[in-house]
């Protein structure tokens, strides 16, 4: 058995369903062997598409996404997606071809120092120098990407190593080191109890770690037990179901006023699996000076990185939630806070959306009300923030977005990956005219998919969020946010064989969207929305 035969057998053994990739000289041996494999290979049209598709699959399922690229430019095209996966803690295995071992360092054709350039954007990476280490390295790579805080792992394989015969199939992987950390739940249990009992206005803040650990139900039970308000970061969206009345929604500068009110009025934040990014908390210093923070995360490096906490716990979110559930806090001090929030819950209504011109908010509300059960994938920009605020989550892992890196172009390939999820949920993609143009070549990948993707492209003829920030930070005309000529996206959809729809009025949208959603084909709707519409933008002083 040679290196590649082993690689393919390895991926099959790990129940890998699909590999997203693009062929090239240094990965020819892999493609030769793939023909005989039962692995599904989906050929993308740009390696960035492959890595985002693998991310989309991984985010939708919690399983490892796998992508494949050739040496040199193929590998460098993965870098944006690796960085994206690193910031959003996505389990992902990237396999890259490399020039032959004897050519490494000679500036050979399509040679690049992939190891060197992916160190900062991967959890770990490997260059395999001899075929016999393939079994061990693949097993280690798999364990690293899935153990602890997930993250992308890249394995670079020279072409000659791929085709060398293995003298042994024995894998002797070292387990990723689990560092003993003294900050266990047990060690701080009494402090947690004391801090919680002393607090008048506690709140639960959930991040992406809750989603990846599947800790939502357990934390919901904890919140219900103590009638706690719950808020989440963008990556924590969908962690707990929307039905809990104290679920106030997303916090942060693009969050909603009620969630932010709950957070800023609190005197105790129990934060689970979040890293207090600057989009969640623009002024972390002030924040921790005025309230107590209990911070639990699986990655010790996140604790006290941005926010000073009174109690820190190194723990998987699920185990932390289970431990929390066993504690019972004294309720009396918190009654006024709970009453106040039940009142607020009752008052909470989505803001009125004007019906005269077509807006992103109105279109999303219509889709949200009429088409539940879809997995929502977004690109990056105003539409993403509207979606994060307006779409109710029914499915686990139902919201797929590029949170940490904010990668425009993520959406289309990620929706392709998400369509492979084992729960067979249908996929909606929300994208914008700016984001869509960053990876729109992946329209060519759609016809090979089994399940149709419904694409809603909000075309406001500008880079809406950039323009909005420009208005906030500077005055006057935003530069380079609207660059004519803006293409006719329906013609692009036609060119790739999709059904296309164009909506510029509320009536047109409401009647046309039914056709589109009932269709069994891939559809792209271009929604000509109001260029003046703003995405949610929260400032502390605008607390209701």
């Amino acid at each position, binding site marked *: 058995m040679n290196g590649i035969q082993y690689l393919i057998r390895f991926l099959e053994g790990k129940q890998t369903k699909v590999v997203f990739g693009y062929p090239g000289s240094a990965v020819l041996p892999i493609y030769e062997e793939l023909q005989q494999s039962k692995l599904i290979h989906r050929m993308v049209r740009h390696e960035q598409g492959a890595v985002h598709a693998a991310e989309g699959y991984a985010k939708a399922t919690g399983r490892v996404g796998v992508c494949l690229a050739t040496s040199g430019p193929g590998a460098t095209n993965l870098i944006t997606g690796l960085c994206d996966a690193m910031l959003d803690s996505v389990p992902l295995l990237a396999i890259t071809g490399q020039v032959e071992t004897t050519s490494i360092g000679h500036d050979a054709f399509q040679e690049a120092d992939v*190891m060197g350039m992916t160190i900062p954007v991967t*959890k770990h990476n490997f260059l395999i120098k001899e075929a016999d280490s393939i079994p061990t390295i693949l097993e280690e790579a798999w364990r690293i990407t899935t153990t602890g805080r997930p993250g992308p792992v890249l394995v670079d394989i020279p072409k000659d190593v791929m085709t060398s015969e293995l003298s042994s199939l024995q894998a002797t992987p070292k387990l990723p080191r689990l560092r003993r950390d003294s900050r266990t739940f047990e060690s701080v249990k009494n402090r947690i109890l004391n801090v919680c009992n002393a607090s008048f206005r506690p709140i639960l803040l959930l991040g992406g770690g809750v989603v990846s650990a599947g800790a939502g139900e357990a934390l919901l039970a904890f919140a219900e037990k103590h009638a706690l308000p719950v808020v989440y970061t963008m990556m924590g969206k969908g962690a707990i179901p929307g039905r809990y009345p104290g679920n106030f929604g997303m916090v942060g500068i693009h969050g909603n006023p009620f969630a932010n009110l709950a957070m800023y009025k609190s005197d105790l934040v129990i934060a689970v699996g979040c890293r207090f990014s600057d989009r969640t908390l623009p002024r972390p210093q002030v924040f921790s000076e005025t309230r107590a923070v209990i911070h639990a995360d699986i990655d*010790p490096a996140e604790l006290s990185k941005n926010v000073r906490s009174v109690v820190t716990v190194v723990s998987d979110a699920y185990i932390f939630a289970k431990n929390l559930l066993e504690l019972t806090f004294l309720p009396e001090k918190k009654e006024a806070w709970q009453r106040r929030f039940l009142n607020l819950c009752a008052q909470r209504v989505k803001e009125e959306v004007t019906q005269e011109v077509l807006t992103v908010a109105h279109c999303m509300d219509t889709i949200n009300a009429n088409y539940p059960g879809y997995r929502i994938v977004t690109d990056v920009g105003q539409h993403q923030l509207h979606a994060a605020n307006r779409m109710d989550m029914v499915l686990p892992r139902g919201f797929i977005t590029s949170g940490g890196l904010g990668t425009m172009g993520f959406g289309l390939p990620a929706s392709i990956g998400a369509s492979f999820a084992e729960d067979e949920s249908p996929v909606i993609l929300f994208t914008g005219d700016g984001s869509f143009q960053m990876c729109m070549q992946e329209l060519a990948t759609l016809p090979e998919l089994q399940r149709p993707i419904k694409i809603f492209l909000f075309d406001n003829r500008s880079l809406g969020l950039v323009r909005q920030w420009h208005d906030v930070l500077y005055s006057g005309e935003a530069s380079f946010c609207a660059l004519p000529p803006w293409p006719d996206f329906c013609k692009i959809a036609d060119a790739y064989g999709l059904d296309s729809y164009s909506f510029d009025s509320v009536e047109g949208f409401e009647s046309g969207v039914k056709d589109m959603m009932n269709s069994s084909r891939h559809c792209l709707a271009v929604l000509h929305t109001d260029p003046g519409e703003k995405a949610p933008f929260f400032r502390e002083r605008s607390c209701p």
Partner: protein
Amino acid sequence: MKHTIVARVDNKPGVVSRISGLFTRRGYNIESLVTSVTGDPGVYHLTILVIGSEQEVELLINQLGRIMEVIDVHNVNEFAHVVRELMLIKVSCPVDKRSEILSLADILKCRVVGIGTDSAVFEITGDESKLDTIIRSFEPMGIMEIVRSGAIAIARD
């Protein structure tokens, strides 16, 4: 404040690059970084001197802990520890001043490791302040060149 970080890491290719790259990426300046072998051929010992606040260095150590090859990493400022550095110093040493300089070297406990026609090279081991004192003592004689190894450290208990 200057902190001495000691790490034990797997002897794998690229490990120093991963560690030094992390300093750049997270915005720290390395004062010195010394890699050395240990009794175990699979393990390297790293001593890193870095300037920063206690909190900054705590974050840095957390980040270092995320590197797969890092076995353990500590800020030895928190423990009783020993730090040593090796210095070679070349001093201007014309024949008429030779005995004067050699007796100074003797007082300072510097070992003579080379004598040229116009210069002498001394070897000194010690902590940072001792080496600084020696540099100051030789300054009036005319220092031609200094090479320092960077510090290595070990916890005492």
